[in-house]
Every structure is written in structure tokens, then in C-alpha cells.
């Protein structure tokens, strides 16, 4: 018997944290429908495992594991190859005033290799610590931190003259 969220509690959690989880699910899957399936399963599983509102790190880790399971069950291509094919969806809220800047940033993030984009996503929009990122992605702490620095360096090169 686990803690059952009330309807309000569940919807409030979906409203506040759902967009960040969906962003990550989209990056980990190949299609919007896969992202939605993975997100739903991960949210429910995480809540049950935590016996209450789960920590964000657990949800991200569950999304990641379920996306890999889905990719493996879909076909035999390597998971990394599948991850590279993230769905082409509007992942961020449009900002009318800075539409051009936003598109440039988004394109720059998308151009990162999956392992770097993943760390940036978990750090910037997931709000995870490097320790949590390391546990979520299954890499050493130093590797997570260095990937993040490397990703920022790459973005800095791409966005030189635009943001800086």
C-alpha cells in the first residue's frame, strides 16, 4: 500500500515539474509519442517507488532507464544512436521579444552531442547537482562536471557574438 496522491497534489506536481520532465523525456526518445509514454510510466513508477512525491533525480533517472528500455525493445540499434534522434518539437516556451535569440540558443543546445546535451538539460532545467547528474546518468562525478564544462565551452563557441 503506497501513498496515494490526491488529485490536486498530482496535478500540481505535473504543472510545476512536468515540463522539465517532458523536456528530458523528449531528448531521450525518438518521437513525441514515445516521450509521452516514457514520461507517464516514469512519473507513476517514481511516485510508487518513493512512496510519495519523488525527488527530481529519481524521476529523471527513471525516465532515462525507461527510454533506454523502450529503445532496446523497439529495435537493435544502439541506444546512443537512438538518443541522437531527439524529436523535433518546440521544447521551450516561445518568447516573443527574444524569439530570434531563443531559437539560436535552442539550436545551439540541439547541436550538442547527446551526452553533453543531457548534462546541460539536467543541470540547467532539471536543477540537479553534479552528484545527482552523475547518479542519474551513471557516470563518475568528475565526468559529469567535465561534460558540463565542455558543453558550456561548445555553446560559448557557437554563440560567440550572439550572447556574449
Amino acid at each position: 500500500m503506497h501513498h496515494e496522491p490526491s488529485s490536486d497534489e498530482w496535478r500540481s506536481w505535473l504543472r510545476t515539474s512536468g515540463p522539465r520532465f517532458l523536456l528530458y523525456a523528449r531528448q531521450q526518445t525518438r518521437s513525441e509519442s514515445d516521450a509521452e509514454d516514457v514520461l507517464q510510466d516514469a512519473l507513476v513508477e517514481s511516485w510508487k517507488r518513493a512512496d510519495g512525491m519523488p525527488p527530481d533525480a529519481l524521476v529523471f533517472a527513471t525516465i532515462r532507464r525507461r527510454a533506454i528500455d523502450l529503445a532496446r525493445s523497439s529495435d537493435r540499434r544502439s541506444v546512443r544512436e537512438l538518443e541522437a534522434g531527439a524529436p523535433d518539437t518546440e521544447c521551450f516556451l516561445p518568447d516573443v521579444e527574444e524569439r530570434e535569440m531563443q531559437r539560436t540558443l535552442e539550436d545551439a543546445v540541439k547541436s550538442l552531442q547527446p551526452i553533453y546535451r543531457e548534462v546541460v538539460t539536467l543541470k540547467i532545467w532539471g536543477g540537479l547537482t553534479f552528484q545527482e547528474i552523475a547518479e542519474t546518468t551513471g557516470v563518475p562525478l568528475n565526468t559529469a562536471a567535465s561534460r558540463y564544462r565542455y558543453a558550456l565551452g561548445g555553446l560559448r563557441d557557437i554563440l560567440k557574438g550572439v550572447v556574449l
Partner: protein
Amino acid sequence: MSDHDPIEDALQKLRPSEIEPSLMARLSAARPRNEAPEKISAWREVLLRWLLPVATSACVAVGTFAVLERRRAHEPRDTPGSGGASAGSPVPVESQDYLVSARPIGIVVAPNQQPYRIMDVEWLEHETVRTDADGRAHHTATTRREVIPVALEIY
């Protein structure tokens, strides 16, 4: 890493897209729920806990009584003053029961939560008797019907 890295500041201005209403409805419907045990209404509880066990017991008692009566009716009656079986009375030498049919009637739950399957069972009794008078074997066949409770295994 500096807290004021312009790249990080710019990225943090991007806000993930809201969840579409259709997906929100789907996720809302997926809310984890405890699988509560089936709520048993009061009358159903009375039926399961008391009426059915009592009815079953009554059926078993009636069935047993009927069988005993039938057997008693087939028993050779001693004549007054004979002091036991008469010289020509048949002596059973062999008896075998064959299960003809077993039909489940239903399941009841005893007050101790032990479930029982109530079975309507029909037996065919083959009996061989021999009389002292002619020494020949005689075969008789009678049917017997019982209503019996069979305890179900619970885990």
C-alpha cells in the same frame, strides 16, 4: 563555474514548454491509486458470512440424514426374538463406490475467512452380498447423493 556565466544565464531564460492539455489529461488520469480491496456491502457480508454457511450446513445435514435413512431402510431388519441376523440374511462381502458426477454449486466463506467450494456429488454403490441359504452372490447397485464442502487452499 561562475554563477554569472552569460551562457548559463541565457539558457536559464529558456523555459521548458508547458504540457499540452491532452497530455495533461492523460497524465492526470494516470495518477497512482491504491488498489483498495473490493468494498463488500452490508447485506452481501451478511450473506457471505452467515446465511450461506448456515444454508450449506443445513444442506449437508439434510443430505447426510437422507443417506443414513436410506441405508437404514436397506438394512435387514431383525425379527423379534431372533437374537441377531437370521440364517438366510444376506452378508455383504464386497462394496465399492464409484464417483459418477461432481458438480460445483458455489463458494462460501466461513466466518474464519476460509473459503469452501460446495459440491453436489453423486456416487454409485456396488455391493455384493451372499446368503447362506444358496451361497450365491447377489449384486446390488444404488446411487447416493451428497452435498459436501471442500476447503479451498488460500495463499
